[in-house]
């Protein structure tokens, strides 16, 4: 069962991907509005809005990853069992890639909606700040030598606790001109299934990648230990 988990997750994600593509392009309506005077609202996005579904799905994964990394790092500090450290590190590694997708698609969205590549829209800002914490975590892991696990665990825990503060800070700081508030709240009901299917799909894909990453970390460690044993026994040189 255990080594079938990744193929199963990948298969589910593949199905979800096809379904979400169908939902996004054939079921979910185009985004446009008529304002009160009967004219087409100038801020309508039409086909450009389609990127929203994958953008939001990746952003959800970013939050999930910060939470997983924070909790498993806390457990790691308490128990010092390497497997919790592996979970945190794998989740962050994969989430950095997902975060890059969030920022890239968010930037494309900003260009389409407001004709600028970046406009500090609250949710995009928050994704950027979370992503910076995750990138910092990866740098720490890479360059902090033997204490990397502890330092990185601390960063993951502090980062998770900082999320509500980032949320409150970004909410107060929102730029009035962006008009970007309430993207999810004002989503037309017909658009919701596509969004939630995409969210679920990318969580499955994320889980598959994280588990693979954990397995490879473990394999690396086992290989290192075997090599050391081989050297000790004189079988290897």
């Amino acid at each position, binding site marked *: 069962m255990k080594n079938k988990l990744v193929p199963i997750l990948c298969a589910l994600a593949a199905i979800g991907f096809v379904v979400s593509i169908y939902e996004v392009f054939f079921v979910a309506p185009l985004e446009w509005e008529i304002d009160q005077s009967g004219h087409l609202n100038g801020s309508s996005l039409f086909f450009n809005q389609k990127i929203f579904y994958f953008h939001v799905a990746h952003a959800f994964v970013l939050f999930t990853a910060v939470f997983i990394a924070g909790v498993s790092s806390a457990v790691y*500090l*308490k128990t010092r069992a390497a497997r919790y450290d592996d979970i945190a590190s794998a989740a962050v590694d994969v989430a950095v890639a997902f975060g890059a997708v969030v920022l890239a698609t968010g930037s494309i969205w900003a260009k389409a909606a407001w004709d600028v590549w970046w406009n500090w829209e609250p949710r995009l800002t928050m994704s950027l*700040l979370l992503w*910076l*914490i995750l*990138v*910092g975590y990866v*740098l*720490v892991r890479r*360059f*902090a*030598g*033997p*204490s*990397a696990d*502890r*330092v990185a*665990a*601390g*960063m993951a*825990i*502090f*980062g998770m*606790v*900082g999320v509500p*503060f*980032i949320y*409150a*800070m970004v909410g*107060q*700081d929102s730029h009035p001109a962006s008009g970007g508030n309430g993207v999810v709240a004002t989503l037309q009901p017909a658009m919701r299934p596509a969004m939630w299917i995409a969210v679920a799909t990318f969580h499955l894909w994320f889980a598959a990648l994280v588990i693979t990453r954990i397995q490879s970390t473990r394999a690396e460690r086992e290989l290192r230990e075997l090599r050391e044993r081989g050297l000790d026994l004189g079988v290897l040189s």
Partner: protein
Amino acid sequence: MSDAKPPAGSMLRHALRIAWKDLRIEVRSKEIFATMAFFGALLAVIDSFAFPRDLAAVRGAAPGMLWVALAFTGTIALGRAFDRERENDTMRALLLAPVPRLAVFLGKAAAMAVLVLAVAAIVAPLLAVFLGAPLFEYPLQLALTVVLGAIGIAVIGSVFAATLLKVRSRDVLLPVILYPLLIPLFVAGTKSTAALVAAQPNLEAAAYWTQFLGIYDAAFLVLSLWTFESLVIE
């Protein structure tokens, strides 16, 4: 070290003693304060040339200059203050001392907060003089904001500076860790200061961001007390 919980009063006394030790070293050598104050003053001079000097621009930019100076000098001071404990492996002695480890942490953080505040006391007047920034129209509110900011920098900074003590690349890694985590603090500090410096000062906004800083400090102080021991001990 025994696991028996010492009374809180003695813990604070130990913390004060450790803070006093750090500050006394600093008063005698003046190494960190002198270099940090000079660095902060240089930043104020560079800012004066790098940014426009008309009052409208200064009102917008001065809060940022103040908080950037605190961020820069704070991280360098943290690195140096903890290097001192590394040189003769005195951090190990401190951690082995028959006082609660939390007292060690609180003492180090308190001394750091005092140092950051001392640098702020140099940089803020300099910005006011060089750029004519109206920073001191609400001195009490400004002081409260800066004190809360310094506490936050000192608390989170002390946790990670202590954790990085044995890491070779600690000087580059400290800002890599601290700045992403401290962004809410810097934003809140800048917003609060900006509300006080604006052409139409907004005391309500300043109070909001000051409260934000207070809650931020409290949350991370609790978290630091909770994690310090397991982060520092190998």
